[in-house]
């Protein structure tokens, strides 16, 4: 166990102690006990940051299930380090923020909250810091679980439970698909280690299983990262407390899918399928998310759709950048790595401004009691600090200079414009879609940022619609968003502090083998990107000014994503369908179940026999016993009596006929020279008839004619087919046993019975000597039956009635 292992496990270890700390120190807010942990982890992770090329990769292994190749391997390279820094850094800020957000110590179950949050933090660190696919999957599912628990933190609210269930179902199904993809990768490469798989990437791409494995892994990544059409869980996850939304649903968990795609780019990158699926899913999500965000009325819903859209943007860039791996490292490939750099840069920027914005919205919610933009307005002078935070965050999100969002948006435009020049995958024709859609999405992004700003902070202040008297938040709540927004500004002005420290090592992990020039400048000269940004601002403002005109349209009034209907209907249909099927087949009638069994057995046996052509009728009559008239008479009698049994109206007659059947069978045993069988059969049949009559004597009076049930054709068909199957298989078995050439082992008994046992009755000697174990157990069966009979007659649990 290295220090990095303890780093992953430390949140889980601390989580164990939280309930005790909560109980023993009721006067101290539990969050204060948590806060040092992410700060320490963040500080420790910072020591791995180096400038220049020299990011040293750390790899430490602890065996977990070595026989299956599952080891708890910690692997820290640029990509992992970036995510781990985001998780711990924003984690620390969120914990600080939550201490003031959930300030009411008495009413809120804080121990639950922090246990779930720590569990999430540990799981997320596990996802990004481990190298083994199975370990990643374990932590991946833990993040889903922790996320659902946190969404349903206020579990008395119906909507919270709905959102938690939805996110659970979608992300866990995706995670399960991902496990299947991991298994396929294991089948191809024989290892669960990601680095081992990357080394064999040529082999993976050549394999026929590459595309299924890729699709399954992407299913996991897309569900987690809320890509179209799996994004529907994210807006419903906004029922969680705001610190949770800020942490999980903007900065960390939803980026787990991004992490996975980046991690697997060296494996699948260069495949046209990967390029197309990832970039197309990204660009659709980007456009859909930004358009949907415009019509939301709830601040958190706007931010949720905005997160969806920004994640789509990062995904698009990762997809486009993977084309670099298609080329030779030394040649043109270099040129296309720019998209990946833009993705990494925007990933960092998004975490900073989206975290800050969520916290600002949380403050507004906390201080006014509502998040509805129709009720808010004119808060600029009331909440000046929150206003400044929001203004910078929104400007960065919209892509305005001089903040970091502007830089990443410019780089995004460059990336999509470069992509149209790709000489592969039909990009020169179809590729034009990317800049066009990206530009439209940017207009809508600008629009919803503007709506958020204007509706919340400008306009008229409406105190009568608010639940509380609006005022500025306490300073503790403002610290975290201020830090995040300062980062937005600092990165905006000095983007190159990230270039060699963070971005270059990350690029080295995503696109191994390439060399980079990760310099980010504000001013590139008057190029297409600048004109696109100017166009975005112009068109966005134009639409905003005419907003009143089409605010009443159907598109604007409907807030719910239409895909929710598909989900809801699908879930309902699944439940009612399953109930319907169960109701049809589980009738509760023994008769039906027996009919199923008979039909299935007849079908399976008949099918098998026909399939293997096993029906045979060439019986050798010379090897069979001779037909005696005496035996024929008994057999015919037996057949007639058996056939008569179902037609008998009266119970006593039926019992008598059953007795006749038994005695005729005893006669058959006599005929086939089985004296012991005949004896036993006679005895047993006599006792049985007596038992039947005894039972009948005590039975309650029943109406006449009740005994003979209605005739059913179906029953007749089933029973005849059962008899036919038995006969046909019997004949086949008989004729096959005549030709297989194997002797019966009975010659041994016949020759050795007297020598070995001293008895002359072979059947009895087999029962008591050669195979006596059967007999012992048979005696046991009889004993158990007798005890059961006694218990059934004597025992009464309800008291009262006795026989």
């Amino acid at each position, binding site marked *: 166990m290295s220090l990095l292992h303890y780093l992953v496990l430390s949140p889980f270890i601390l989580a164990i102690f939280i309930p005790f700390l909560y109980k023993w120190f009721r006067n101290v807010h539990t969050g204060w006990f948590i806060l040092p942990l992410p700060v320490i982890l963040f500080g420790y992770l910072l020591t791995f940051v180096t400038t220049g090329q020299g990011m040293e990769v750390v790899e430490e292994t602890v065996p977990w299930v070595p026989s299956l190749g599952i080891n708890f391997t910690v692997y820290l390279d640029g990509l992992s380090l970036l995510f781990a820094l985001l998780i711990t850094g924003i984690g620390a800020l969120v914990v600080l923020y939550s201490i003031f957000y959930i300030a009411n110590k008495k009413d809120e179950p804080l121990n639950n909250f922090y246990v779930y949050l720590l569990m999430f933090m540990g799981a997320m660190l596990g996802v990004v810091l481990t190298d083994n696919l199975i370990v990643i999957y374990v932590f991946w599912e833990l993040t889903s679980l922790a996320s659902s628990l946190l969404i349903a933190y206020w579990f008395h609210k119906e909507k919270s439970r709905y959102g938690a269930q939805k996110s659970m179902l979608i992300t866990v199904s995706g995670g399960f698909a991902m496990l299947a993809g991991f298994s396929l990768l294991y089948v191809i490469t024989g290892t669960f280690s990601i680095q081992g798989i990357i080394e064999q990437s040529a082999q993976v791409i050549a394999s026929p299983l590459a595309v299924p494995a890729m699709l399954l892994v992407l299913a996991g990544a897309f569900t987690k990262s809320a890509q179209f059409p799996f994004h529907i869980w994210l807006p419903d996850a906004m029922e969680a407390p705001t610190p949770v939304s800020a942490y999980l649903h903007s900065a960390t968990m939803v980026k787990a899918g991004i992490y996975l795609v980046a991690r697997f780019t060296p494996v699948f990158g260069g495949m046209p399928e990967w390029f197309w699926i990832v970039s197309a899913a990204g660009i659709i999500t980007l456009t859909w998310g930004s358009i949907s965000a415009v019509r939301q009325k709830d601040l958190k819903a706007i931010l949720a759709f905005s997160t969806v859209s920004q994640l789509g943007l990062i995904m698009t860039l990762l997809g486009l950048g993977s084309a670099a791996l298609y080329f030779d490292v030394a040649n043109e490939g270099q040129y296309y790595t720019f998209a990946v750099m833009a993705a990494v840069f925007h990933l960092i920027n998004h975490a900073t401004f989206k975290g800050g914005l969520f916290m600002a919205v949380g403050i507004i919610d906390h201080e006014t009691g509502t998040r509805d933009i129709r009720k808010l307005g004119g808060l600029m002078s009331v909440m000046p600090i929150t206003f400044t935070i929001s203004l910078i965050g929104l400007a960065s999100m919209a892509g305005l200079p001089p903040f970091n969002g502007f830089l990443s948006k410019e780089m995004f435009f460059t990336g999509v414009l470069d992509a149209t020049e790709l000489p592969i995958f039909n990009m020169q024709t179809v590729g034009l879609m990317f800049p066009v859609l990206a530009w439209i999405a940017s207009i809508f992004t600008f629009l919803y940022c503007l709506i958020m700003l204007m509706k919340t902070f400008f306009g008229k202040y409406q105190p009568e619609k608010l639940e509380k008297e609006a005022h500025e938040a306490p300073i503790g709540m403002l610290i975290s968003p201020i830090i995040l927004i300062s980062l937005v500004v600092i990165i905006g002005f000095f983007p190159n502090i990230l270039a060699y420290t963070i971005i270059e090592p990350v690029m080295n992990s995503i696109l191994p083998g390439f060399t980079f020039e990760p310099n980010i400048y504000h001013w590139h000269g008057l190029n297409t990107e600048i004109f696109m940004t100017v166009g975005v601002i112009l068109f966005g403002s134009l639409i905003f000014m005419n907003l009143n005109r089409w605010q009443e349209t159907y598109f604007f009034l409907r807030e719910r994503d239409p895909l929710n209907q598909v989900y809801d209907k699908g879930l309902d249909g699944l439940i009612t369908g399953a109930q319907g099927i169960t109701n049809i087949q589980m009738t*509760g*009638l*023994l*008769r039906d179940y027996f009919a199923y069994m*008979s039909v299935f057995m007849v079908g399976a046996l008949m099918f098998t026999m026909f399939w293997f052509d096993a029906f045979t009728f060439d*019986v050798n009559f010379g090897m*069979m016993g*001779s*037909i*005696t008239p005496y035996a024929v008479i008994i*057999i015919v009698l037996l*057949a007639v009596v058996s*056939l008569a*049994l*179902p037609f008998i109206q009266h*119970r006593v007659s*039926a019992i008598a006929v*059953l007795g006749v059947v*038994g005695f005729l069978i005893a006669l058959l045993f006599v005929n086939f*020279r*089985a*004296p012991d*069988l005949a004896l036993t059969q006679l005895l*047993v049949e006599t006792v*049985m008839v007596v*038992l039947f009559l005894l*039972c*009948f004597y*005590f039975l309650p009076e*029943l109406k006449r004619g*009740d*005994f003979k*049930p209605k005739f059913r054709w179906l*029953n007749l068909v*089933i*029973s005849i087919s*059962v*008899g*036919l199957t*038995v*006969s046909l298989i*019997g*004949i086949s078995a*008989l004729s096959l046993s005549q030709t297989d050439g194997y002797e019966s*082992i009975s010659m041994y008994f*016949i020759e050795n*019975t007297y020598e070995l046992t001293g008895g*002359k*009755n*072979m*059947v009895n000697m*087999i029962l008591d000597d050669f195979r006596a174990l*059967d007999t012992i157990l*048979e005696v046991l069966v*009889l004993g158990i*039956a007798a005890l059961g*009979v006694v218990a*059934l*007659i004597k025992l009464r649990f309800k008291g009262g009635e006795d*026989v």
Partner: protein
Amino acid sequence: MELLMIILIGIIFSVSTYLMLTNSLLRVIFGIVMLSHGAHLLLLTLSGFNDGAPPLLGEEASVYMDPLPQALILTAIVISFGVTAFLLVLGYRTYRAHETDKMDQLRGNADE
């Protein structure tokens, strides 16, 4: 001989299936009894008949009937007797408790 027996066994199996598919509890027990008869006869038949003596060494014959299936059937007869006796008493208890022998009235609760 064996072919005749196999046809008879087919008939017995049909009758027992038909009885088990009916609505009366007593008839279901009849069906089970018939099914065990059919199974015993099938065991005997498929070992093959020869015209030998009963499996008693005192007979001092040259050919004996196969003793092994007879031993197996003997075991099976006793076991099926035990099970049938238990079933009968169970059926009797059901009658006492529910005053009916109709299988479709003995369906249990919806929650089960």
